[in-house]
């Protein structure tokens, strides 16, 4: 117990030098935890919104459907198989029919997706009831992004042109009966939602769908011929990859900060070893082995990390708690990055993140503190007492 006490006393007696290092290191703590919490919050918020609004408990895709290849949409429809039809009837799943279409707002051509959904569904958070209680021949609803981009508002009439199952052109006026606000751009951008039965009727595809969305925590009925089940890990893989990429970008910043803090620790250690040669010689003359002296100096360095964790906790916990509570206001452009996060982001600080970050910084500090002390292993006590270092 002598070494830790001695190490602690030594760094406290170093005064301002120690506290400067500790404060710099504590910044690294807070910034790492803040940024990681930011990206965890981003992931968590985007995942929750997308699952609620679109993915549910997983989706069955008609085998021709590929959301990244618009050319497949033409053929991506088939009668709903009985096993999935039962789920739809039990309100455990919702059927979606997706058709490519063209709208002509203000005489300008615009390619969109026409999506049919049961207005009474409660599987996804889309406010489909908006198109359920309207007397218009084809009531349609759009998201606020679509409303802004196409210049369409509630009550507007827009001509929509599509092709039916045989490839024959059809065009009808859709009345926009509602504009909803959502953080999930996948249910908003360049699309109009209309009642499923109308879309099936006008495209001459009765009883057909492009995808079936299961309710959250719903159990998929196994393999269905002609349909492929996409579970949540599959559906969310792009989102996770995107967050990972952003997280790596963020780590560059805190790596730089950590590097600067470690440089300060390294510098302090080198200076200590240079200035305290006689002290080392005295300790060895009093019977301390070289490894014990190395241990003492390494411990002094490592204590910087522990002290920094305490200082970081003093101002970091209240600061990060406030941010987690009120969230961070995001600029309007964030919406175009493809994250379903809305106007405020609430960082998530998990125990794993806090403990992991503390451990990481302390380990790195200890390693960096140890590196300059290797010189001590070649130190002769007589030289040290004379103030020489070999």
């Amino acid at each position, binding site marked *: 117990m002598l070494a830790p006490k001695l190490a602690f006393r030594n760094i406290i007696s170093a005064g301002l030098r120690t506290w400067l290092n500790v404060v710099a290191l504590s910044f690294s703590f807070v910034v790492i935890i803040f940024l990681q919490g930011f990206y965890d919050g981003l992931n968590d918020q985007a995942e929750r919104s997308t699952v609620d609004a679109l993915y549910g408990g997983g989706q069955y895709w008609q085998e021709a459907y590929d959301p990244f290849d*618009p*050319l497949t*949409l*033409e053929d991506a429809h088939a009668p709903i198989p009985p096993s999935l039809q039962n789920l739809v009837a039990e309100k455990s799943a919702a059927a979606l029919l997706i058709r*490519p279409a063209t709208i*002509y707002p*203000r*005489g*300008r*051509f615009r390619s969109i997706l026409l999506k049919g959904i049961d207005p009474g569904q409660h599987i996804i958070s889309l406010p489909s009831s908006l198109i359920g209680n309207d007397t218009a021949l084809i009531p349609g609803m759009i998201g606020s992004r679509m409303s802004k981009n196409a210049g369409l508002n509630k009550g507007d009439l827009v*001509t929509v*042109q599509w*092709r*039916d199952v*045989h*490839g*024959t*052109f*059809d*065009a*009808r006026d859709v009345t926009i009966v509602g504009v909803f606000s959502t953080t999930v751009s996948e249910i908003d951008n360049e699309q109009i939602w209309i009642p499923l039965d109308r879309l099936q009727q*006008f495209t001459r595809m009765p009883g057909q769908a492009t995808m079936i969305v299961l309710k959250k925590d719903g159990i998929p009925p196994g393999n269905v011929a002609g349909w492929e089940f996409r579970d949540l890990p599959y559906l969310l893989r792009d989102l996770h990859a995107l967050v990972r990429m952003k997280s790596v970008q963020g780590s560059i910043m805190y790596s730089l900060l950590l590097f600067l803090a470690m440089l300060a620790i390294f510098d302090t250690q080198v200076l200590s070893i240079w200035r305290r040669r006689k002290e080392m010689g005295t300790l060895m003359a009093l019977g301390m082995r070289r490894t014990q002296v190395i241990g003492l100096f390494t411990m002094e360095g490592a204590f910087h990390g522990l002290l920094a964790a305490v200082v970081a906790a003093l101002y970091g916990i209240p600061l990060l708690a406030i941010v987690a509570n009120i969230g961070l206001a995001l600029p309007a452009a964030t919406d175009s990055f493809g994250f379903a996060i809305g106007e405020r982001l609430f960082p998530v600080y998990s125990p794993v993140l806090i403990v992991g970050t503390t451990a990481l910084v302390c380990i790195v500090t200890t390693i960096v503190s140890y590196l300059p002390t290797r010189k001590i292993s070649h130190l002769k006590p007589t030289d040290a007492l004379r103030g020489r270092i070999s």
Partner: protein
Amino acid sequence: MMIRPFVLLLCLPLASMMQGPSGDEILMRVDKNMFSEQKIVESRMIIHGQRDTRTVESKSWQRGTNESYTEFLAPAREKGTKMLKLKDMLWEYSASTDRTIMISGHMLRQSVMGSDLSYEDMMEDPHLPNIYSATISSSEVIEGRECWVLDLKAKKEDIAYDHRQAWVDKERYLVLKENLYARSGKLLKTVDVREAMHVHNHWLAKSIIYRDVLKEGEGTEFHIDNITLDAEIPDYLFSKASLRR
């Protein structure tokens, strides 16, 4: 008394002749007038866009309804682009990228060079009697010409336009105006013949305006500058190899 049925029998064909041709017969005669087995056409397409107007010049070699080869001559950006249609397949060769792509599926619905015409419009069977049945709805005068107004209803389900209206010149059997409708009855496109020409006993459109009526704009003008009917066209032209020549 025996004379009356005999006179009636004599009068029946006369009455049907006085009634005039049926819609389908008119359509057959329109098809006969407009169709020639082989032709070479030099044309200009004037595309009126939202911001500017472009003129695309091309030369086409057509054999029957299944084979067509088109080379774009101007503007410089489109020069060297070639299109080959063989039955129901369409390829486009881009000189700038030295690539040949097959236009299929959704791409057939795209506009040709930004015009009001889609690739699919170009691929349509030009023999209207094959795909539409016609009835005469009325008579009208268009640009000083007496016309039958024909209602065309698709015979098959996989036809792009469920029904059309065609104004057919009673004397020349040339369609002077056409309206193309969606299945709901909404008007989608109009075709207006502004000028006709007489070539080898055929009355053909020389200047046409295509207009997508759902879109704002002045439409796309199509002018035939030169046409050679029943021309000799070498076989090699209708092969994919000819696109890179």
